[in-house]
Every structure is written in structure tokens, then in C-alpha cells.
């Protein structure tokens, strides 16, 4: 599959703070791609540079094969975006907004079709200030689709939504994938990223610190697995410390936990140890790192090192 978005060495500074400090990533056509990272990591700046809201200081951006920095208006014809805080004028109606924004594009979808698709038909002629939060968000999405975009950008699409609206939105994003759209979204929520996205890029302090599918990120993590066990007789922590690859071993009578860089070897050694001492193993769990742990590792380690 050809890359639909290619960002190379993107840099953007505000004064002395570098919001994007050499960001690079590719998004393949038809993929749902998430940029995740803590507040102020540079997600929104990166996104805004890609969609042409901001002019980067440096770097190369290619969208649908078009140099986005040279021909931003061409790119804008092909993409749709729903930003945070897209509040429209109080008295504009969804139908008017869709007609207005549609008129800005060469190729456009009929307002009626969009109203239908985003369940806004019964609010088509209601002023914006009478819409609920979920309805406003759906209108923002409808506006992103007004030009039949190849690529859709969603900045924190579920922020501030109630669970019901959030689920509807997740369904909508899944539908975008089925329709063959490429989607780039930013989010705080790891669950959301994990559930919705094909690939994730973790961004921190203006840099991409990891990219991959959720599974790859977890598997590729150098983070130690957590091993917990329950035994028939009390165990002493000192016995465990001598095992290969073990860190932070703790025991509390018949239960204990430890961390291991090499879970397979550690558990094998652990079994051998219990057998040698005649201790019966009641339960044993090995947990690879969660996405959240990977994320926290990646985003706090740098802090410690900085």
C-alpha cells in the first residue's frame, strides 16, 4: 500500500519551545492511525501542520502524494478535519453550515446525505446554540466529510463526550475504515487508540518515541513482565532474588510478585525452585506490559533522563 501521509523531520517552535522537534511518520492508505501523547507533547501542533493550519519551521509533509507545504490548497481539497473546540456561530443551522462549507470545495456531498448519515436530520434547521454536545460533535464530523475526503483528521474526537456519544463515534470511525478512508486521530485515551487504531505513534516532547500496532508496541517494550504467584507454604523473598532476570521481588507469606526481563526463563527457574523445596504452586500469572505501561515508560523515562 502506498503511504497516504508522509511526514519527515517536522519541526515547529513557538518562541523557545519546540512543539515538534523532528517528527517523522508514515500513514498507509486505508489505515486508522493514532497520535497519542501527554498534554503538550506536540500532537495538535503536528496535526495542524499536516492539515495546513500552521506553517512548519522545517520538514517535509506529503499528503496523498501532494507536497502539502507547496500546494496547501490542493491538499485541503482532499482532506477533511474535525478539530477540538469547533464551535460555530450561535444562529447557524447544520444545514446552512454544511451548505456553506460544501461551497468551498470542488467536490462535495449533499447536505441532506450528510445530515442523514450523522443523524442530524431532525436538527437540520435548528440553530447551533440549541444543539447538544454530541450533536455538535456529529456536525463537526459531518463538516469533515463535506468534501468526500480521502483522508480524515480528527483532533481529540471524543474529548468531552458522554459514553453514549463516544460509542456512536467509535462506530462511526470503524465505519470510516470500512469505507476505505484513511484516518489520523489524536487522543489521550489509550483504550480508544487500542480499540480503534491499526497503528499508533507515541509522541512526547515533540518527538515520536515509538510507532507500531498496539501489540508490537507492547511486545517490543523492554519493560519487565509482572509475575505473580500463590503457593501452599510461605516463601521468602531472598530465595527469589537469586533467580535470573528478577527484579523487585516481594513476598507476603504464601503469595508473592516479582518483575522479570525474561519471563520465560524466570518462570522456569521459579518452578524448579519450588519443586526443589517441595512447595506446591497454587497459581501463577505472567502479565506482559500493558499499553498504558509502555506509554508511561516511554513518556516518563525521557523525563527522568532529561
Amino acid at each position, binding site marked *: 500500500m502506498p503511504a497516504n501521509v508522509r511526514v519527515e523531520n517536522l519541526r515547529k517552535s513557538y518562541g523557545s519551545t519546540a512543539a515538534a522537534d523532528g517528527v517523522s511518520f508514515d500513514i498507509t492508505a486505508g489505515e486508522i492511525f493514532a497520535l497519542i501523547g501527554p498534554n503538550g507533547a506536540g500532537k495538535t501542533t503536528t496535526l495542524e501542520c499536516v492539515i495546513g*493550519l500552521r506553517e512548519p519551521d522545517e520538514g517535509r509533509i506529503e499528503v496523498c502524494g501532494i507536497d502539502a507545504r507547496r500546494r496547501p490548497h490542493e491538499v485541503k*481539497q482532499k482532506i477533511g478535519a474535525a*478539530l477540538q*473546540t469547533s*464551535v*460555530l456561530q*450561535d444562529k447557524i443551522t447544520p444545514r446552512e453550515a454544511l451548505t*456553506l462549507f460544501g461551497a*468551498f470545495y470542488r467536490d462535495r456531498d449533499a447536505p441532506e446525505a450528510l445530515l442523514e448519515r450523522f443523524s442530524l436530520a431532525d436538527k437540520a434547521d435548528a440553530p447551533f446554540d440549541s444543539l447538544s454536545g454530541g450533536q455538535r460533535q456529529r456536525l463537526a464530523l459531518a463538516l469533515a466529510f463535506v468534501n468526500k475526503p480521502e483522508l480524515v483528521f480528527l483532533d481529540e474526537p471524543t474529548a468531552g463526550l458522554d459514553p453514549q456519544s463516544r460509542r456512536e463515534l467509535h462506530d462511526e470511525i470503524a465505519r470510516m475504515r470500512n469505507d476505505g478512508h484513511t484516518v489520523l486521530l489524536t487522543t489521550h485515551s489509550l483504550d480508544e487508540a487500542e480499540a480503534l487504531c491499526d497503528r499508533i505513534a507515541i509522541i512526547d516532547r515533540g518527538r515520536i518515541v515509538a510507532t507500531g500496532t498496539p501489540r508490537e508496541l507492547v511486545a517490543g517494550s523492554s519493560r519487565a513482565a509482572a509475575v505473580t504467584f500463590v503457593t501452599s507454604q510461605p516463601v521468602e523473598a531472598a530465595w527469589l532474588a537469586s533467580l535470573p532476570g528478577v527484579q523487585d521481588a516481594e513476598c507476603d507469606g504464601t503469595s508473592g510478585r516479582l518483575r522479570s526481563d525474561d519471563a520465560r526463563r524466570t518462570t522456569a527457574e521459579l518452578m524448579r525452585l519450588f519443586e526443589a523445596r517441595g512447595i506446591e504452586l497454587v497459581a501463577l500469572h505472567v502479565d506482559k506490559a500493558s499499553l498504558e505501561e509502555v506509554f508511561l515508560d516511554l513518556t516518563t523515562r525521557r523525563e527522568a533522563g532529561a
Partner: protein
Amino acid sequence: MSGLLQQLVVSLKLYSRNTMALVYGYVFPTIFLVAFWVLYRYDKVPLARHMGELLTIAVLGGACFGLPTTMVSERERGVWRRYRLTPVPTGYLVVSTVLARYLILISAGLLQIVIAMGIGMPLPRHPFQLWLAFTFVAFAFLGLGLVIAMLADNVPAVQALGQCLFLPMLIIGGIAVPLASLPDWAQHLSAFFPGRYAVDAIQACVTGDGLGAAGFNLGALLVIGIAGCVAGAKLFRWDAEQRFVARAGKGWVGVAILAWVAVGLAAEARGRVSIVRTAEPAETTPAAASGRTAAPFAPNPSLSPAEQAAMQAASSAPAANSTTPPASTTTAPDRTASSRGTPPAGPAATPALPPPAPATVPQPAPTPAPVASAPPSPPPAAAASASPKTWQAVTAADIDRDFIFTRLPPDEGVVTPIAPPDEVPAQEVLDELEGIRAALPTWKPGKVEDPVQRARNLLYVAAVPDIFQLPMERYVPQLVFDQLLQDIPKDDLIKILYWIGMHPMDGTDAAVDQLRPLGLGNGPSDAEQLRERTAIYAVKLLGRITGRRPAR
């Protein structure tokens, strides 16, 4: 293109749904219109003289508040951010937003004109040029509105900034308060605000000679508008998170300010600042002025020489006037003395004019009323033995003793003004003056038996426009003086004018309620003020015909 049209249509639709904006755009200027109508209710043609002010106020409100409020509130909401995601260049959207506002201003202006015409104003003299002038005015103020929109970080800041421009311009910029009523410094300051150029340009199309003579005004508006648009474009920000202080290129505000200063300096350099000169383009377009205004107003130029001749006669031929004592020989030297400051070695350098008057003056010179001796009601003749008992007994010595002509209010001031003979009034004033000139010889109160009362009555005709500050106030005195000189033998007139100056409260003022045949309304309710102004005009005329206080 269709996107911009769509945006313009939506802008207008949204405007029409915003009650506050409608109140501000249409009701607010109408309130001014009604206020002006009431304030200037003595105008013969309602509101025509004030359309410059009224339309400028309508534009100013829509441009200094309306446009930036809309733009800043949309920016705060993220609408402009949303627009920026579309392929349409942001500049185009700014243009269509400003264009929508221009259409709103046009509709508000039309509403003002329609209401004014409903009240009785005739159709503006140059409707097409009025549209053109209005467009220039709108351009200048919309440019200003753009700068405000870019300076203000939020809507309250728009209000604050807008007020900072709106109020000074209304009050000392020549919009709500006529420039003629402002002190000199304010007239000079107003040259640095666009308001007065807007008022002048529009007014020229409503009642004046059109834009032919308004080149400077249009140029000033254009410069201010371009500077505003350039600064607005350079400062443009679509994102509410960009605060103004954090922006690069703040210096572009200076461009807008520089344009105002440049226009002000140009106006100063061209001597267009003083209101007397800007009253009508007598200087700037001599052709237009002499071509159309001199003819209907022929008596005025012809009369001022006549008056001068009269003054010459009064000063140089005292012997011919049997009733005038020889003391009047002092008048000719006095003229030169007062202008040069030192008495020449004339034959009789009697210090008649230089204040203070000789010790024989019985009353101290009163401070507020510039008529030198104005003891209110008790007849001063009784108190001062030297004062004449009847008007027939007045002598030149009485005049010299009782009046200090140098203390009269200046002719170009606000109280009892008299236009210089070569000043050409505006067209609509000319028409009104013609009406008075035609009606004055047959006006009944000007025909009463008693010559003193007759003179009083005629002088009231000058005093009433002065009190109401009608635009004709500067020109009517000359008509009245002419009529008096025609009607009453000069020697008698000198004595009568002295008498009126000394006895302002005598006689009746019933004549002020019979001004309708002259095209004026009822007289003022403040009789004392009326009498006082009448007396001052009497003494001013006295000074002119005796040469004690020449016209210039």
C-alpha cells in the same frame, strides 16, 4: 467564488438573526436621528444639514463595533480556524465578511435617509455621489474596524477599543458636536480623526455641491481606509490563542496611526482645519463658489462696500452731520490706533476706545455681558446725570463714554457672530437667507411707528438665529444691518442703536413670535438672553457705522 457568495449570504442571514446586532445597526442610528431632529428642530429643512453626521454615526457604529465584534467572536469560537481548513484563502473570506458588513451599512444608511425623508427632508442633491461618498466612508471605517478586530483579543476588548475611538470622534471629531461649537484646539485635533472628512464628504452630497470640491476629504478617507486594511491584513490572526502582545509585526498598527497623522498634517498644511474656512469650499474651488453662489447672493458683496462707505462717511465727514458732535473726529485715528496699538499723532487723540474708559464712566465695566454698560432694568439715564434722557439727545460723547467696543465678543465667536462680507454661505443657507432678505422689507414688526421699537424688532431677527445656533446665524446680522441702514436715517440709527445698547430691556419683544413670514420658528423662551444678544448686535452695528469698531 460560490463559496464566497455563500459566505456572504450566511453572514447576512446570521446578522439578521442577531437581535442585538440589529438594534445596534439600525435602531441606534435612528435614535441619533431622532435626537438630532429634536435638537435642531429650528432647522427649516429637517435633518438635511445633519445627514453627514447621522450617516457617519451609522457607519462608525457598524464598523468600529459591529464588524470587529462579529469577527472576534467568530475567532474566539474557532469559526475562523474552521474556515482555514478549507481550500479558500482566508483573505477572500475576510473580504466577503467585510463586504457583507458594507451591505449592512448601506441598508442602515438607506434607512436613515428614508426616515429623514419621511420627516420632511428632500431627496439628497447628488444621490449617486452620496453613494460614492458613503462607500469611501464605509471603506475608511471598515479598515479601522479590521484593525480593531486584530488588536482585540476578545469581545470586551473590542468594546473598549471601539469606545476609545467612537466617543472622541463623536465629541471632538466633528460628528455629534458641530465643529463650530468646539474650541480651537479641538478643531485642530479633529483634523487627525477621519470623522470630519466623512461628515464633510457626505454632507457635500446631501446639501452641498457634490464631490467636486470634496477631493481632499475623499483622499483622506481613502488613505485612512487603505492603511487600515494593510495593517489589518498584516496583523490578521485566525486563532484566538494567538494573543496580540505575542504577535510579531505589531508595528503595523503604527501604519494605521501614521495614516491619521499624515492626513491631519496634510489638512493643517492646506489650512483646511479652521471651521470658518471649511464651511464651504470658497478657497478650494473658487470656480464653483463664484460660479453658483455669488449670483443669488448679489446683495451681500454689494452691501459690504456700501457699509464701508457708510463708515467712511461717518468717520471722515463729521461736519456734515449736524447732530453729531465734533468729538466723532476721533474715530478715524482710533481705527488706526486700535489696530496699531499706539495712538498716532492725530489732531485729537482722545482715548475713546482704549479701555479702561475715562473716569467719568459712571458704571464699572460689567464682566459677563460685553456690552460695556448694561445695568439691567433700572434706567441708567436716571442714575447717571450725564446720560441722555431720550434717544434723540444721544451724543457721540455718550457713545464714547458708555461703550468699550474692544470688549465686544468677536465676530467669529459663538455669541453674536457676524460673517465677514466675503464669506460665501452654503447653498441651503443661501436659500434661507434669500427668503429673509425678500421678506424683511415688508415684515410687519419692521414697520412699526416707533423707530426704536422698529430697530429692536429688526435686531431680534439677527438675535434669534444666534440663540438657536442656526447655520444662518453668521449671515443674518448683515441683512438686518442693511435693512436698518435703508430704513432709518443714519444719524438717527446711531442714536437708536446707542439707546438699545443702553436699554436692552425696554420696549417689547412680541415681535419674536411673528418670525414665521421670515422662515423662522417661534422665538426663544429666554427673553433676557434675547435682549442681551439684541443689545450686543446693536452695539456692534453702532461700532461699524461710526467706524469705532470696523468690520475687520
